């Protein structure tokens, strides 16, 4: 009986240490964008992921395979998450499949709002649950609990804005559906005096497109075009495309963005 109890205790200890074991390939840290919280005002928190060489994690749309990186509040009584912005991704190819995500590092910008007047809530310490899938030639689920104090530190978030897609709108985007494929056209704005740069397409939603050929073809100095076949197993035809368009070697007047996030209504 005594041995049985010891045996069970050892098994429990082993399984507990296994479940608490943190990832060796991905480390997460977080920092507030402010040292003060105001009533009815959103607060930004930057989550930084340090990813071990050769490993990667996934974007909000993982692509053909993988799993979205997630951040949730452990305690939802006092604050709620309003938005999560993802760093502009890169793509990974595995034979003829494509996924979207990050190697080396990733940044997620989380916006939270107090749910009650500040006098009624505790906000010295905020706790988050972060989860992801880390992959190399194999995949492992990763989890980390993040606890941070609002008074401790402040990140200069403007330093990080260049890593996130911009929502600026003077680049023209249009999309058309024809013959089971969608063509997306981009026209550069007048202020951009250089030749249109190379553009890559990252669909923000799953299930509509075959992830084949996401590099735009340069048509002339002003326009780029991409034709993507629709997924043969899609539930329905999309009415709009939500995507990130990533520019390489963009000579931007303010040097503040390298990608644009956009919703485009599809002409049928």
């Amino acid at each position, binding site marked *: 009986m005594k041995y049985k109890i010891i045996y069970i205790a050892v098994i429990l200890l082993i399984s507990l240490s296994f479940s608490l074991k943190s990832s060796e390939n991905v480390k997460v840290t977080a920092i507030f964008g402010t040292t003060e919280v105001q009533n009815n005002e959103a607060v930004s928190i930057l989550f930084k992921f340090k990813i071990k060489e050769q490993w990667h994690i996934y974007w909000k749309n993982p692509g*053909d*395979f993988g799993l979205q990186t997630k951040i949730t509040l452990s305690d939802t009584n006092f604050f709620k998450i309003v938005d999560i912005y993802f760093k502009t991704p890169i793509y990974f190819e*595995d*034979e*003829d499949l494509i996924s979207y995500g990050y190697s080396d590092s990733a940044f997620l910008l989380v916006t939270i709002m107090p749910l009650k007047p500040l006098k009624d809530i505790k906000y010295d310490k905020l706790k988050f649950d972060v989860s992801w899938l880390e992959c190399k030639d*194999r*995949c492992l689920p990763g989890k980390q609990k993040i606890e941070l104090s609002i008074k401790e530190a402040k990140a200069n978030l403007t330093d990080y804005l260049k890593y996130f897609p911009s929502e600026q709108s003077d680049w023209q985007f249009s999309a058309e559906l024809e013959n089971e494929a969608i063509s997306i056209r981009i026209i550069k704005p007048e202020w951009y005096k250089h030749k249109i740069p190379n553009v890559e397409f990252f669909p923000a939603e799953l299930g509509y497109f075959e992830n084949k050929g996401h590099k735009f073809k340069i048509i002339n100095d002003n326009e780029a075009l991409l034709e993507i076949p629709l997924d043969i197993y899609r539930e329905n035809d999309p009415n709009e495309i939500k995507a990130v368009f990533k520019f390489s070697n963009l000579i931007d007047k303010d040097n503040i963005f390298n990608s644009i996030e956009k919703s485009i209504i599809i002409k049928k």
Partner: protein
Amino acid sequence: MYKSIITLAVLLFIQFSSNAFSEEKAKIGEAAPNFTLTDSYRIAHKLSDFAGKFVVLEWINFDCPFVKKHYDSGNMQKLQKEYTKKDVVWLSICSSAPGKQGHFDNAEINNRIKEHKASPTAYLIDEKGEVGRLYSAKTTPQMFIINQKGVLVYAGAIDDIKSTDISDIEKAKNYVKEALNSLFKGKEINNKTSVPYGCSVKY
């Protein structure tokens, strides 16, 4: 001479069209493309041999955490047991190429099946990835259902919660169960497709 040229042309046309048909990719609402694969006991199985029965195709890679979720919890085995009892043919297909994750020799496959108490009708080996590509299989797991007329009626995920967490299984809507139950009742399937989630098929 003229006749033989025409005969030859007709024969070439038939040959060409039959090849084109066999290479036609799977589509919902259309005849499921036929294939022949060998199982882990070296027995060949042809999809068309199962005509008249419901067939489930399950893309598998035992080392993928998404597959582990459904096997370590017993969820996949429960489905296999429940529906093979009802005469559904359940084919687990592994399209991992040699040397890649999920590719094992027959002895190891049979060990794993035994260890997991899995009960598919057969575990089929597709190491060239031809059948995987024919069905555009992207992830493990990924599920397909073929009706008694040989038509592909479901393609997609096993359920609606994309995670590796076993505790999500109970909360999830199981698309395969829902589709098979509708088929048995002679009803239309509500969700004919869904976006599959999981590891990449290791072609």
